[in-house]
């Protein structure tokens, strides 16, 4: 197996085994998701088919992306920072893997379960909409494209930048910068969401395509930034 995938597989295994962390994430998702959507759901509960589909689409765009990014935030701290606090990173750095492969393996290993959680949330939203309506409610094609292409790329971006910062900086700096980063991400998604709600941006296949390309570019930039990482920076910022 490619060593990058070996690292990714190990991260996923560790995530799957960390029950308390997973329970914490589920609770957070439930509370956050409930608080965000309850008002909207109540307002259209008596509504027609069109408004229910529109609601589902707008809830999905916001919640699936935000909660996917949040999952990436929670899970990345075990994969990157956790390996520094646990001290195992030194041994990993002695393996034949180049630094960027270590980073990439971890990004993949965190991104996959985070995306799985995002898909689960999408599924729950569709199921809830269908219990509210007496006909089949499905998200629009554009929204399906958004979830399949845009969401995973932006989760990877969030995990990539968080992981990079966690490897590069010491514990104290990380505590602050990680929170700043996640707030920045959520704020950006919220702003985008409000543009859509106010009709400033009309979601279409072209917009989804542009977002996808932008995400890939961003990921490339983050990947390029990992050049400034080096083993000494990681080792001298161990707690």
């Amino acid at each position, binding site marked *: 197996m490619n060593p990058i995938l070996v690292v990714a597989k190990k991260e996923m295994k560790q995530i799957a085994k960390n029950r308390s962390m997973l329970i914490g994430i589920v609770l957070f998702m439930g509370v956050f998701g409930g608080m965000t959507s309850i008002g909207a759901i109540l307002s259209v509960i008596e509504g027609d088919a069109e408004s229910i589909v529109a609601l589902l689409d707008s809830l999905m765009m916001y919640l699936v992306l935000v909660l996917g990014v949040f999952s990436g935030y929670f899970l990345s701290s075990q994969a990157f920072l956790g390996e520094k606090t646990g*001290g195992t990173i*030194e*041994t990993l*750095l*002695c*393996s034949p893997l180049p630094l960027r492969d270590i980073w990439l393996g971890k990004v993949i290993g965190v991104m996959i379960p985070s995306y799985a959680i995002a898909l689960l949330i999408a599924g729950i939203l569709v199921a809830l909409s269908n219990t509210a309506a007496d006909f089949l409610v499905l998200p629009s094609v554009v929204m399906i494209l958004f979830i399949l292409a845009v969401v995973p790329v932006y989760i990877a971006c969030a995990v990539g930048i968080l992981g990079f910062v966690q490897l590069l900086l010491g514990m104290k700096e990380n505590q602050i910068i990680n929170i700043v980063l996640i707030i920045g991400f959520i704020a950006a998604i919220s702003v985008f969401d409000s543009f859509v709600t106010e009709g400033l941006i009309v979601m279409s296949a072209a917009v989804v395509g542009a977002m996808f390309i932008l995400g890939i570019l961003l990921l490339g930039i983050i990947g390029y930034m990992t050049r400034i990482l080096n083993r000494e920076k990681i080792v001298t910022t161990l707690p």
Partner: protein
Amino acid sequence: MENVVSVLNLKKTFDKKPVLSGISFDVPRGEIFGFLGPNGSGKTTTIRILLGLLRPDSGSALVFEQPLETSDKTRARVGVLLENNGLFDKLTAYENLKYYAELYGIPDVEERIRELLAFTDLTSRKDTLVGTFSTGMKRKLGIARAILHRPEVLFLDEPTSTLDPEAQKMVRDLIVHLSGDESMTVFLSSHNLDEVQKICSRVAILHGGTIKALDSVENLRKNSGVTNVRITLSDSSQVNEARSVVSKIPTVTDFKEIEEGFSVTLSDSSASPVISGLCSAGIAIEEVVKDKRSLEDIYIDVMREEA
């Protein structure tokens, strides 16, 4: 002979505090090299620089003639057990070994893991989470992990410091076996001088940023310049007579009466002037014991000289 490790005029400073002020040494293939020094003398720092985890301020630290930081392929030929065992608490012993086996792409994963678990006596704990292991069990698994991919050189940073006497012996035997049968080169930092004396072909003593001694244990003992000799007399009432004979010998620096005889400190390693002096004075000798100076004595001397 080919040098596996070569360190030349290596300097490293942390926050303006010099830790290594120009150290040089080589480790040839197949050697068990002991790296000694008090707490904070820079042993771990030297190992980290050799492994490419830290950068030298100046000078060089090469393994197989390569700087490990940039030579991915060469890192695959190196095994490491640092202060941290490199194990994940939330994975089982087997899962930990499997991870590293796949990372290094070793061919016979299952067989090799079985062999090493058996060797470290951990077969029955194979599916137990490492987080539940005792400190010593983790260390043993860490050693198995370090040699999993059959490295050509093994860096061990205080491998036995947390082990019970039986496990310490197991690790010592393992190191000797690896160096002998598998011609592995071993770089070992340790505070356990007895252990180092038993297994290391050569030692370096690091102190105050420089290497204070670098030689085989045998040579260090020989060249340390001082020897103790204990002499038991057939007739212990002759001890005062012996004192007057022996104190005339120029190499004798100290005379101490002990039960049934006396002990002298000599400024070189030869006891024959003392023995022949006593014989020609007609003093019968029952037993002569030349105390070999231990590595510990030598180490303490080196530290004292510094002070």
